[in-house]
């Protein structure tokens, strides 16, 4: 044994720490909304613009709220997972389309009238769902992002699991992967639906 081997020992300890650290998520700070009632909204439905929907309409059901937009690249990555999910699982998935027009860089909002924005947003969202498949039971349109603020949306896509009493039970930021769906969301849905 030579006297320089302690350096290797110290390095091994560091590696062990880092390896354990990889399994932890420092960002896994619970959203303040988890355990609280889902903030109320009443937004126009994409398929039937003259009707509106809010969390109170979903009372008594376990449901998912998925925040998306057609300009969001990660949403496209997530989309096949959601489509697959909607085919297999009988849990209502509600889409919250977030700042469809304003969130996109390509428009000068100062020069766009409100009804023009609305028309364009519905058109774009419909086209996107037609192109990529529609996993949503319904999609509601949050044109100005106010509901997004209430829900603390800070990166699209985001997904909320809401229970029968209308309480948020889980929030996931970023695209849903098959892994997260299988290991976290599905067990939670099963438990809530018991």
């Amino acid at each position: 044994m030579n006297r320089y081997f302690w350096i290797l020992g110290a390095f091994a300890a560091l590696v062990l720490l880092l390896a354990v650290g990889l399994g932890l998520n420092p960002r896994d700070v619970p959203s303040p909304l988890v355990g609280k009632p889902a903030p109320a909204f009443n937004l126009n439905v994409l398929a039937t613009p003259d009707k509106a929907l809010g969390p109170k309409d979903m009372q008594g059901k376990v449901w998912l709220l998925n925040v998306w937009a057609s300009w969001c690249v990660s949403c496209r990555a997530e989309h096949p997972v959601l489509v697959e999910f909607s085919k297999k699982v009988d849990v209502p998935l509600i889409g919250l389309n977030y700042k469809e027009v304003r969130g996109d860089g390509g428009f000068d909002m100062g020069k766009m009238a409100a009804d023009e924005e609305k028309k364009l947003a519905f058109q774009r969202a419909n086209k996107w769902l037609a192109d990529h498949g529609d996993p949503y039971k319904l999609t509601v349109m949050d044109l100005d992002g106010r509901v997004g603020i209430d829900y603390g949306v800070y990166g699209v896509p985001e997904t909320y699991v809401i229970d029968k009493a209308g309480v948020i039970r889980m929030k996931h930021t970023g695209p849903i992967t098959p892994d997260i769906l299988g290991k976290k969301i599905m067990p939670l849905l099963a438990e809530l639906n018991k």
Partner: protein
Amino acid sequence: MIPELGNFALILAALVALILGTLPLLGAHQNRMAWVAVARPATSALALLVTFSFACLAHAFVNNDFSVVYVAQHSNSLLPLEYRVAAVWGGHEGSLLLWMLMLTWWAFAVRMLSSQLPENMVARVLGTIGLVAFGFLLFILITSNPFDRLLPGAAEGRDLNPLLQDFGLIIHPPLLYMGYVGFSVAFAFAIAALLSGQLDAAWARWSRPWTTAAWCFLTLGIAMGSWWAYYELGWGGWWFWDPVENASFMPWLIGTALVHSLAVTEKRGSFKNWTVLLAISAFSLSLLGTFLVRSGVLTSVHAFATDPRRGIFILIFLVAVIGSSLALFAWRAPKVGLGGRFALISRESMLLTNNVLLVVACATVLLGTLYPLLIDALALGKISVGPPYFNAVFVPVMTPLLFLMGIGPFANWKQASIPEILRTVRWAFVAAIIVAIAVPLIYGNWSALTALGILLAAWIVFAGAINFVGRVQSTRAGQSFLSAALKQPRSFFGMHVAHLGIAVFVIGVTMVSSFQDEKDVKMAPGESVDVAGYHFTFNGVKAVEGPNYVAAQGDFDLSVNGKFMLKMTPEKRNYHSSQMPMTEAAIDAGFLRDVYVSLGEPIDRDKPEAEWAVRVYYKPFVDWIWGGCLLMACGGLLAMLDRRYRIKSRATSAINTQAGTQQA
């Protein structure tokens, strides 16, 4: 098509790196010159391929090719051209490619500038870099390929994070990476020396300018990042002890120790094992920094995309590179001779103390950075370690270091006399004490910590001046002072300029933390506020439009003693692509102070013409912080350009025989 070519070049580069990392190393071991000869052409090919690949990615950005996922995520057709180019390294994949580009360029520089080195040595150095390059190329190709396609392509890109749309992004990452990656050369020289068993003064002489060059880049890179944070974040802070900052600061501390330790190894043949260990550590810490930043094990204000697969890959890479080099070290080090003896008081012992203090400083930063992870790993909760810890442990370590910096240059090699040194520098110390008492009094707020900072800075300046003048006088031999001064070696100038840089830096830090003033106020148009004698009048806010954002631009008149000085126009920008408003502070920079205004939020969101939250800062000497860093880097540049690195074998053989006799 072009992204596929870039991808293909990257795959080819990985193969070339594998060849570079195996044949020359084996060849050097078995003395097969044909294999050794592969090193140089393979290095050129590697540099060419990676450069081509990088150019392909840049081409995709410049031409808005949103069918490449990475481009779609980090660019936008409205983004100005210079940011589209800088956006190449605005995200994870591209910044790894930049890292790679720098590595191959360093290797290419070694290949071009090593004509006087033995071929076996060159083969081992380039081979080691080749292995590192191979690992990184695999990492890029497997987990983070910037050329992945998005089919069908997106109509528009998501745009670059507005925080990054700044001049800082154009130069900060390249400088920082040049520093990080530059330590790979010192590392490769250390590994080559361990492999060959030739750990001598000649080795130290060869690797010294490379180490200094990397250190200069790292110094500038860190300073640039700090300056960027200062003007871009709008908080007026210049260093936050954030994990990502620490990740760059740790290699700097060890690199600084290495630069000094190499001096001892070169001049006296001592500290060989220690120097090699520092060279390995400096690069290992660069890699550790990459791991910490890229794996997402720590939370940081630098919100990088993270992916656990990447973390595992870097960790494996870390284990392979650092583990094998430390094992090699542990195996070879006991056989290395001790080198020249030295007395308890000597330049060697002072440089050793310098090294120990720098390593301790680095260890405290490492501890503070990893502590939250440790606590989390032990399931004891989630904590964060902030500036109070770092400030509390850093000052006690830095104080003796800065004090020693004043007397170190006076100490002779082998043996020095403390009374003699003290006699030479006593007036410097007296003068420093007077300045340390006077300056805080003039600024009207005396505190022990302020006085300590000024004392140390003044001490370094005065003692350095005495040392400089003394040395010039002793070599004057009838010439004028100026011509004798100009004949001093560049490395001597380099040392003093770099030390002066430290003093300037310390002054900046001390003054700004002691005497800065800030006010956080609510202002309606027409109102005014005073900070440290500066009078700010708010004239309201108007809307302005940029290429890819709209902004509320505040209009402030700055006046002193009733005399109008200038208009200041801080902005609050809303980028079309982002929900987060960005603050653009207005800064009037000056030699002795900065005045800084940043716009907060309108008090009533629907009435931007009414009251706004406004922050105004007075920051004395803040630019000295970065000025000091610039001086340090200039000092390093001077040292690197010293004539003796360009004289060929003469000095090398002389030192060899000298070292040989000392070991006997």
